[in-house]
């Protein structure tokens, strides 16, 4: 089969690899009909994530048809159409039973390695470093899905791939980001980053009743899409985020703040972001936390910071004093996808939201390597790339 493989910094190649096979009775093999490039894949592309090896198959947003099932898997049958959550979950451990699926204690087969880095390992992930289990990813024609009787969501044929694909990652990620804010009807929610996760966080905040939602980015078409979803746009290349937020909140600051940017915050004219970039080049800092610092600064005292944006290592100069003295709550985490998918699928089926709005580019798997560059450079209005490994 063909698959996108990581070969180093800025080096993704579409190559032929052996087809996956059933390894455990709970496994399934999925023939991928659609897969997507996630913003967090760009951290792999940039070489920021430790634990990748040349040849690793990448990709964690995918869906398709079940073509083989292990003998112990009673939940799926050949022919089922499924969306696969980006986190691999056993469904049986203490964390899974508590609903903390992204903290599954059994699915990361390299947990000893991850324990050394993070203290305690999280769940295994598809195509996202050996620290997360070293599982082959979904930007491929076929994928082996471990614990396939626990994670994958069956989806009806009445919905297109583009309407349901994002149930595996960015839609529940945006949804959880908004939930973590515990939105009250009078809240102003500010969202940093208008990529796919930010777009879904904005719409989730609207559905959950925020009085006002603000989107902060610098790419005009992303801000246009954010405004279409109900947000007030701030272009940080054209105006001061602090001044504009003060104006929009009558000087009090937003009650709830969402970081949908993560570790690769854009380098702006602010001194702290420029220093971050310099420190990163000198390997004195692994992540660029400009958005975190800004959120801590502007958030209304007593407010909540919600962080779905991915971070990998260490950040420098975090204003802990402001965080503590303002009584801010910080909620973070990889998404507990399976906790939300049933509800979100229902909303899609009822027509409350059509997630296909976010798709801007549809290409073949062979064009995937070039699309990584287009996506990274935000060229051609690129916000979300969908690939079709098996045609259509």
């Amino acid at each position, binding site marked *: 089969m063909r698959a996108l493989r990581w070969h180093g910094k800025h080096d993704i190649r579409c190559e032929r690899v052996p087809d996956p096979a059933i390894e455990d009775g709970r496994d399934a093999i999925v023939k991928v009909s659609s897969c997507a490039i996630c913003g967090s894949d760009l951290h792999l592309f940039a070489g920021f994530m430790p634990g990748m090896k040349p040849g690793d198959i990448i990709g964690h947003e995918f869906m398709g048809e079940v073509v083989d099932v292990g003998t112990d898997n009673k939940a799926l049958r050949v022919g089922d159409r499924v969306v696969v959550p980006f986190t691999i979950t056993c469904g049986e451990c203490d964390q899974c039973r508590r609903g903390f699926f992204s903290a599954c204690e059994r699915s990361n087969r390299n947990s000893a390695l991850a324990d050394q880095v993070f203290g305690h390992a999280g769940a295994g992930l598809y195509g996202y470093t050996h620290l997360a289990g070293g599982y082959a990813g979904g930007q491929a024609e076929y994928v082996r899905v471990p614990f396939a009787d626990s994670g994958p969501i069956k989806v009806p044929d009445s919905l297109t791939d583009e309407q349901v694909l994002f149930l595996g990652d960015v839609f529940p990620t945006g949804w959880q980001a908004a939930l973590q804010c515990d939105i009250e009807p009078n809240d102003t929610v500010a969202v940093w980053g208008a990529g796919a996760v930010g777009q879904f966080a904005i719409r989730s905040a609207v559905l959950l009743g925020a009085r006002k939602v603000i989107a902060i980015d610098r790419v005009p078409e992303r801000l246009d899409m954010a405004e279409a979803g109900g947000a007030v746009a701030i272009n940080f290349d054209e105006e001061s985020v602090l001044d504009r937020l003060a104006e929009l909140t009558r000087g009090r600051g937003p009650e709830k703040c969402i970081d949908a940017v993560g570790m690769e915050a854009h380098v702006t004219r602010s001194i702290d972001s420029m220093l971050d970039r310099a420190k990163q080049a000198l390997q004195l800092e692994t992540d660029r936390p400009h958005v975190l610092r800004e959120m801590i600064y502007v958030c209304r005292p007593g407010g909540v910071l919600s962080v779905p944006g991915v971070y990998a290592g260490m950040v420098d100069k975090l204003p802990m004093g402001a965080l503590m003295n303002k009584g801010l709550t910080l909620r973070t985490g990889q998404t507990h996808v399976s906790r939300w998918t049933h509800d979100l699928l229902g909303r899609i089926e009822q027509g409350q939201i059509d997630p296909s709005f976010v798709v801007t580019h549809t290409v073949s798997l062979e064009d995937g390597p070039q699309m990584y560059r287009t996506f990274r450079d935000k060229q*051609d209005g690129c916000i979300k790339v969908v690939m079709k490994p098996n045609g259509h």
Partner: protein
Amino acid sequence: MFPSRPQARAGARALGWLSIAIGAAQLLAPQRVARAAGVPDRTLAVRGSGVREIATGVALLNSERPTTWMWARVAGDVLDATLLARALRSEGSATTKAALLAVGALALADLMLARRLSQPAPIAPMDYKRRSGFPMATQQMRGIARSDFAVPADMRVPAALRPWSSDAARAARSDAAA
């Protein structure tokens, strides 16, 4: 702008066919072609030029990106013009002069098309202003999920820490007092 990109691509295809025709003539009748151009009869050189013309022509007709092959034609024109100019200096016939003028005219056409095709295609600005994902205006969608979705307790601010005026906080204080 003239030529437009579609016109330039059509011109490239026409020149591709011309290349194949000229190349076939050079390959099949090298002496006659040499006489027509007023150059010395060097069969191998003329046939070599024929192979080059055919290869360029085939590439132009089959490539999705003809720009490179148009520049290859320009390079071939420069080579041909150089050889004709040398022949004109040594023998100076009217036939050679006419051939040189013809190659010059073709070279100008090739250069114009190669430059046009080399210009990046203009990118239409993206318009995402209507991509809400909602079936109705966002104002009508606001809060719809509150009617059927309860934020899980582990993602809620504890009742006793809620805004003092909220129902939940009042209830928590009552419970504590009781």
